């Protein structure tokens, strides 16, 4: 009974309604903004939102990873390779040249992504076993080390992964709007699931470990077990994000294991707000938009003509300038507002509310 009752409570709760509204709004956006560039940016944002949220989930249990690209990469490679094999099998079975589009292919796409996530979680379990005893920078360096090793392994077994030259996965769901819907369904579900876990008893244990591991152990929490669980859940979602990412940009090679990809979710989470639900999403929106806006044609041209002459050694000032600014923003956030943009928005909102109330009393 309690399970069905809980489910009923959940379906009636404000959180669930908010979720439905979120999903509806997100799904409707591309109908009003039909520009394909915006659709591209939005899809990318929500893929990175899952990725950043998975990193944030891990950080909530007191573990900071500097090598999350391992799981992005494993999820991506696994789903792309498995998807490729399935599509070959189906095409061989049906005797057609292209994949038929329909409910079946959506089902295949979703299960391929889930399998990618599961494989990533499996590797996550193994790596997590190595990591549970480590703290702070030891953990950071070891997770980073695994991302370097993953790149080397992928090069070593190139005949299986095709990682050196890279390859394009076979799409089951057509790109553009249908894929966008797929991505936001995954994003909304993933973020909601991670939120629910954080609200549950297990989440309480995670937060206790984050607060003080020694004390958590003292009050009877099996810290190693819970840290491992957090690791596996986080890597599962990172793997799903990896699968979506690979299917979205339609290419995967060894560069997916790069440090840039490892640092990305961390920067998004910190800028957005560490330890909050909306933080990673805000960070993903912020960072991805800044990055994408700077690559648009008009901005490129403007930057080249206005700032280009000052830096004659670089072909195009955009990317280094972006990363420089991101670095400055990251520093400013950590030093001046450690709770991220989320807390700034909250303060601003509270300020507005009190202003209004103040007006009423006059």
């Amino acid at each position, binding site marked *: 009974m309690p399970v069905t009752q809980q489910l009923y409570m959940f379906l009636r709760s404000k959180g669930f309604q908010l979720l439905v509204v979120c999903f509806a709004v997100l799904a409707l956006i591309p109908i009003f903004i039909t520009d394909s560039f915006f659709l591209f940016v939005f899809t990318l944002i929500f893929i990175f939102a899952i990725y950043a949220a998975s990193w944030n989930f891990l950080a909530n249990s007191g573990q900071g990873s500097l090598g999350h690209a391992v799981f992005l990469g494993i999820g991506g490679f696994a789903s792309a390779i498995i998807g490729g094999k399935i599509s070959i099998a189906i095409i061989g079975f049906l005797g057609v040249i292209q994949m038929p589009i329909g409910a079946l292919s959506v089902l295949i796409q979703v299960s391929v992504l889930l399998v990618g996530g599961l494989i990533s979680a499996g590797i996550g379990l193994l790596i997590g076993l190595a990591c549970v005893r480590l703290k702070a920078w030891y953990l950071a360096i070891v997770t980073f*080390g695994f991302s370097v090793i993953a790149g080397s392994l992928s090069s070593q077994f190139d005949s299986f992964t095709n990682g050196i030259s890279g390859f394009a996965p076979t799409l089951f769901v057509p790109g553009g709007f249908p894929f966008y819907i797929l991505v936001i369904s995954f994003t909304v579900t993933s973020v909601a699931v991670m939120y629910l876990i954080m609200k549950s008893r297990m989440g309480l244990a995670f937060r206790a470990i984050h607060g003080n591991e020694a004390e958590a152990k003292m009050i009877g929490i099996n810290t190693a077990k819970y840290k491992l669980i957090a690791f596996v859940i986080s890597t599962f979602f990172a793997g799903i994000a990896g699968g979506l990412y690979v299917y979205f940009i339609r290419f995967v090679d060894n560069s997916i294991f790069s440090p840039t990809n490892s640092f990305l979710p961390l920067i998004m989470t910190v800028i957005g707000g560490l330890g909050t639900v909306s933080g990673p999403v805000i960070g993903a929106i912020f960072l991805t938009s800044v990055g994408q806006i700077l690559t648009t044609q008009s901005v490129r041209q403007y930057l080249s003509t206005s700032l280009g002459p000052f830096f004659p050694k670089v072909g195009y000032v955009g990317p280094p300038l972006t990363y420089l600014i991101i670095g400055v923003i990251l520093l400013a956030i950590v030093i001046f507002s450690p709770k991220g943009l989320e807390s700034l928005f909250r303060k601003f909102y509270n300020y507005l509310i009190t202003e209004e109330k103040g007006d009423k009393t006059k």
Partner: protein
Amino acid sequence: MDITAGTIVLTLIWGVAIGCIYMLLATGLNIIFGVMKLVNFAHGQFLMIGAYLTWAISVAAGLNAYIAILVSMALVAGLGVVIERFTFRRVLGTEKLNEIFVSLGLIYIFENAALLIWGDQSQQIVSPFSGLSLNLQSFSITYDRIVAVFVVVAVLVGFGLLIGKTKIGLAMRATSQSNGTAKLMGINVEKIYMITFALGSALAAAAGGLYGIIFSFNAQTGAMPTIIAFAIIILGGLGSIRGAIVGGLLYGIAEQMATLFLGGIWSTAVAFALLIIILIIRPNGIFGEKGE
């Protein structure tokens, strides 16, 4: 490739030369950790900046590259003071993750500032010994690598004297043992932090100069050496200078041997594999003390 006794000896010597550079970098990282209990993940970026400054000074002023290293050490030490004052001091004592975040921000700033100023092409510092090498019967080794070993030894001896024999060194050692007690003894801990950070940065800059003479470098050069230096001090024990020296040599030789026997793509991965295995067995490093 034929692996003969000659190539193995050559690889050993290369390993020692490269190990010496890493040793210098690791010592800088280690002194900062020992005194401030801070891990600066942007330490390799100081190496990169040091290499670029050495290159720029030796090109612009026509200085001998080895003298330019001294100038660049002084400049990077100054940069270190500014960085410590305005970033790390503000997050010191808060959550450990914040230090990692600040380092990451610094990495982005340094790398891209260097990219904007010096461009994306690789550079190499021209030293007076460039192109010259010592020829023995079966192999030859460039003079620059031999000189690098001597420079590192000289810098480390000077550094050891500073720590062991001077009043500032004494204050640094006191602060590393307990900053609270050091404060009570009348040591200006903040000043010691500043000096330590400047010293660590200067060591990184020296490593950068030597690195730039032996290898070509670009704006992204700093990332890998940071990680390697970190691996070395974990091998040798956080805070132990002697450990950093032994660890640096071991690492340099292991890396070159891995390249020789397994191929280039494995040179860093093998080192990490070693590091991970060690940390799984001993979560606080080989010589590290047990925490909490």
